[in-house]
């Protein structure tokens, strides 16, 4: 069913907030989305009636919580169409998922002189972990360049895939530009040379259906809080063949099979990578968020968001001195821009005064700002509850900014 925003918005009580005397307009969804009732209800129910430590006690509550947690793993599995449930590792979010692979994979498979390949449009969380891992291993970090529109240069990518490349780590959707990268094609090219690929899907899962088997990616990472779920929970998908060979990332309870002071044997997948008491409540909250998305349907969500994106671009174009950053042919849910004659920070302050939440600055992607030689952008990132009316109000507010600074 097409998205009916009035109905959807009723599920998000925070959208009724007033900011500086104006109704809140929330356009900072790429940073984090708001949470629907069903997610908050799930957290509450868990702590009210189900709370217990899982995989340990033989008692009723522990068993119930364990079953709920493992059922949530099954939900994640079918959400991204993973082959096995144990290929789903729960983490604190996409950042931890990337850190896990950077640490554990590089530990095992990367040696001095090898190369790891990332792209020019990565979020800092898909740059820094590789920098650290490469430094430790005396390996080189190589960067796939992009063009002025904010699209990866595929011929350069082909050239960079070499005998020394051990892994490609690239974002599915750029958080700062909204570009949808041709990840399927990139994975095919890398696999021709037997190079595994990690996809950072934090900005993709809220907006599109992801099928890790169809993509054939080796790792896929995403966060709960960017897709209507709680903060502090996320997923690492990894192909069994890799996860089995990789050493544990953190150690403690749960990840072990047998422990003596001489020797420890590790548990099997997925527990080998889930040391300590897991974040059960937020995993269940994330499951509720996935149910929320599936009930609306990715197709309808995408149709609604694409309509808003096209509408926003069309309206914003009419403002004087506006410069769009990121004009890729394939993009989703993000429009990044600045006025040539007004600092993005100044614009952001006035928008805030008018109750409009946008992100200003470098969006944790400084190399992109360096590439365009700009101090930052104003990023409007859309979600299923946004409306055309909100975009009209944004454009009015920006016209007011122009009056004040122009």
């Amino acid at each position, binding site marked *: 069913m097409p998205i009916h925003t009035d109905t959807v918005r009723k599920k998000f009580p925070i959208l009724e907030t007033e900011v*500086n005397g104006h109704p809140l307009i929330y356009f900072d969804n790429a940073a984090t989305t708001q949470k629907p009732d069903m997610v908050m209800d799930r957290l509450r129910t868990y702590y009210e009636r189900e709370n217990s430590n899982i995989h340990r006690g033989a008692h009723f509550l522990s068993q119930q919580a364990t079953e709920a947690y493992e059922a949530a793993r099954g939900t994640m599995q079918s959400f991204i169409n993973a082959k096995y449930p144990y290929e789903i590792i729960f983490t604190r979010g996409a950042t931890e998922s990337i850190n896990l692979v950077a640490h554990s994979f590089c530990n095992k498979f990367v040696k001095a002189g090898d190369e790891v390949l990332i792209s020019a449009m990565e979020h800092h969380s898909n740059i820094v972990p590789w920098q650290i891992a490469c430094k430790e291993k005396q390996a080189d970090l190589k960067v796939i360049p992009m063009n002025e529109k904010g699209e990866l240069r595929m011929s350069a990518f082909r050239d960079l895939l070499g005998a020394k490349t051990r892994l490609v780590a690239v974002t599915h959707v750029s958080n700062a530009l909204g570009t949808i990268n041709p990840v399927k094609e990139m994975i095919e090219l890398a696999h021709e040379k037997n190079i595994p690929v990690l996809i950072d899907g934090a900005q993709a899962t809220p907006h599109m259906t992801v099928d890790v088997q169809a993509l054939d990616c080796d790792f896929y990472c995403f966060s709960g809080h960017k897709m209507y779920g709680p903060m502090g929970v996320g997923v690492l998908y990894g192909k069994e063949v890799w996860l089995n060979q990789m050493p544990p990332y953190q150690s403690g309870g749960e990840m072990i099979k047998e422990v003596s002071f001489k020797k420890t044997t590790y548990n099997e997948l997925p527990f080998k990578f889930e040391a300590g008491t897991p974040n059960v409540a937020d995993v269940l909250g994330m499951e509720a968020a996935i149910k929320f998305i599936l009930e609306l349907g990715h197709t309808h969500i995408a149709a609604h968001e694409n309509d808003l994106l096209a509408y926003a671009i069309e309206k914003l174009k009419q403002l004087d001195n506006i410069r769009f950053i990121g004009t890729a042919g394939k993009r989703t849910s993000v429009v990044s821009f600045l006025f040539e004659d*007004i*600092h*993005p*920070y*100044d614009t*952001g*302050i*006035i928008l805030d*005064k008018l109750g409009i939440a946008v992100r*200003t*600055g*470098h969006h944790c992607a400084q190399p992109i700002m360096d590439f365009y030689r700009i*101090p*930052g952008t104003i990023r409007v990132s859309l979600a299923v509850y946004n409306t055309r009316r909100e975009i009209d109000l944004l454009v009015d507010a920006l016209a007011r900014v122009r009056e*004040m*600074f122009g």
Partner: protein
Amino acid sequence: MATIREKAQEVIEEFELFDDWMDKYNYIIDLGKALPGIDENIKEDKYLIKGCQAQVWLVAEYNGGKVIYSADSDALITRGIIALLIRVLSGHAPEDIVEADMSFIDRIGLKEHLSATRSNGLLNMIKQMKLYALAFQQKK
């Protein structure tokens, strides 16, 4: 010459005249436009106070027992607030600057610009202004 406290009080009284935030921000923008700033060629890294959103450059000179500040920013609202800070602190003895009460920023409703999340360099700028004063005080 007025003391730091008197100048801060003057600023507070000026801001009390504004009925709404628009007037207030228009005034700050005007102050930002009027700030002489600093020459492009001395916008060196050693004067740069980095913020995630806006940059600030701060230069301090010690002359005849008084500290003279000049500063600049790439964002206009930040420049306007810089103009206020300079107006209140510049031209005073190091010991007075070190001890200066900066709560007037809060009183005129601009505290939000000093929060860590704004990350525009202003908070560090105030710290840096006081650090310069402290250094000059110890050189005396």
